[in-house]
């Protein structure tokens, strides 16, 4: 394409992108700045847009003690969230990969029915089936446990579909070559499918980890003990206080801390994540 360069046509995309970044980044910046001032400055509405001197104090207090109203140290909330998100992400990958393998590579009776049943669960997220799910979890005694937090969220139609699509791009000759090379279904899974799926698994891990980390309603419902709470629930508790000033500086600090693990996961896995979504290595 022949492009006629002009200062305005050069600037326009930058301008649009800058506005977009500004809209997205400003609240984050506000939270970061808020976590470095004291309660009074934030409360009287004169908080400057640059960082203040209270960062160390705020972060040590949040991590070690937490806010007055929630009373749980953020460090523990983060650990709970981390365990839950990790269990959900790994569990989803394991379960959906195995079910996709079954649907793609085996010809069993009611194979399509099984596939459609999985597909239909797309229409049944936790929020829709929350009451029966709660009943089941409560009756098997999983309230206030990590298993109760993670297991009901593990079944995943999205991940199964993604793996199915990926498996269908693996050339059928590879299966046949494996058969002739003496590799059975389990060996083919372990030696060929698994190594080829690494990038897809990484992409899913990123998406599902963040999904697990951001869960609010489900942890709120099934945890009663404060030491089993997750950080997303914890932030909410900080905001609603009775007979006292909301500790905005601690809420902001907690919010910034809550953002860190997902950001780290994305940064660390970025390369694999992009490759998993766009490239298939065959």
């Amino acid at each position, binding site marked *: 394409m022949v492009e006629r360069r002009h200062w305005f046509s050069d600037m326009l995309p930058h301008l649009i992108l800058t506005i977009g970044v500004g809209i997205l980044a400003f609240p984050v910046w506000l939270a970061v700045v808020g976590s470095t001032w004291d309660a009074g400055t934030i409360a009287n509405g004169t908080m400057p847009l640059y960082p203040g001197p209270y960062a160390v104090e705020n972060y040590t207090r949040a991590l070690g003690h937490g806010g007055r109203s929630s009373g749980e140290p953020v460090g523990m909330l983060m650990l709970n969230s981390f365990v839950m998100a990790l269990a959900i992400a790994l569990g989803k990958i394991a379960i959906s990969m195995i079910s996709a393998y079954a649907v793609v590579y085996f010809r069993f009776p009611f194979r399509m029915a099984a596939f459609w049943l999985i597909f239909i669960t797309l229409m049944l997220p936790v929020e829709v089936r929350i009451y029966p799910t709660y009943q089941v979890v409560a009756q098997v005694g999983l309230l206030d446990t990590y298993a109760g937090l993670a297991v009901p969220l593990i079944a995943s139609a999205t991940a199964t579909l993604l793996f199915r699509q990926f498996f269908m791009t693996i050339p059928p*000759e590879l299966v*046949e070559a494996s058969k*002739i090379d003496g590799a059975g279904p389990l060996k083919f899974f372990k030696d060929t499918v698994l190594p080829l799926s690494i990038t897809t698994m990484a992409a899913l891990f990123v998406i599902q980890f963040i999904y697990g980390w951001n869960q609010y309603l489900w942890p709120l419902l099934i945890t009663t003990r404060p030491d089993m709470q997750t950080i997303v629930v914890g932030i909410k508790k900080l905001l609603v206080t009775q007979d006292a000033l909301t500790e905005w500086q601690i809420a902001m600090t907690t919010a910034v801390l809550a953002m860190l693990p997902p950001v780290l996961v994305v940064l660390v896995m970025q390369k694999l994540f992009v490759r998993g979504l766009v490239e298939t290595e065959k």
Partner: protein
Amino acid sequence: MAVVTLQNVRKVYAGDIEAVKGVSLDIPDGHLCVLVGPSGCGKSTLLRMVAGLETITSGSVAIGGREVNEVEPADRDIAMVFQNYALYPHMSVYDNIAYGLRNRRTPKDEIDRRVQEAARILAIEPFLNRKPRALSGGQRQRVAMGRAIVRKPQVFLFDEPLSNLDAKLRVQMRVEIKKLQRALGVTSIYVTHDQVEAMTLSDKLVVMNAGRVEQVGAPSEVYRRPATRFVATFIGSPPMNLLDGVVEGEGRVRVDGAVLDVSDMRAGLQPGHLVEVGIRPEDLEIVGSASNSVSLPIDFVEELGATQLFYGALGGQPFVVQAGTGVVPADAKSLGLRIAAERIHVFDRESGQRLGRVAETAAA
């Protein structure tokens, strides 16, 4: 090394689609048998049934005298080379070649010895640590062959192994496959749709069409005495010319007003029997404008370098003549043609069967 025997092998897919309609075949020990035919003729299905990748609807497949209908592919003692190579993309070349042996719990030093030997034979030693995607098409093809030969199987199966290569590489690999097969002496079945590949590679050529075997024989025999009209037009390039004709009498056929003498025609055909006369483009003699010749007006000429192809029509049917470059003057508007009686093939117009000797041994 083994004899491969197919007996009345059939394959019927769901919905009553009959892909292979009863094929019987004997492949002697150490021979390279090429299955050739247009796409959809069942040649690949037949190969995959020998490999064990397709079930056999009826009939039997035996390798080395053992019926293998119900035997798993891994236990049939075969090795297969696929069209798209089917290399494991995440494994190094070495691991690709060694994988089958490892699954058989071959001792480590034995694996290493065999992989190195195969790599030496195929000249892929420098690439053993590379991944397949870092190799060219020809190199990948060699790795696929390496994976087959380390197994020391009784039978090699090739499923259009050269189709993904460019023309020059294809000719080169064709020669190498032939040499390798000769050197190893392993019975091989090779599927292709390319008749040149089929002619040059095969000890035994099997021409298939619509799920049936049309003709089995040595390549030269199939070329010289095609058993059916289909074989006549499929084998040979450019394809054999076909002209409608009518039997005039014993050894004589009338084609477009002219009467041709035919030396190889079944006796006892009634005058008036509808036939097709086949003449290969390279079998015609160009005689200028002699009195007893047929004249072919030239529509256009194709230059192939060493030879030229002259396109025209006889009696309303397209006709091609091949001649050495320089035989015909550049400004010629028509060709005078003569054909030796023994070079004319006659086919039944209705059934397409050859009306003459098929087997070479019966020839005078």
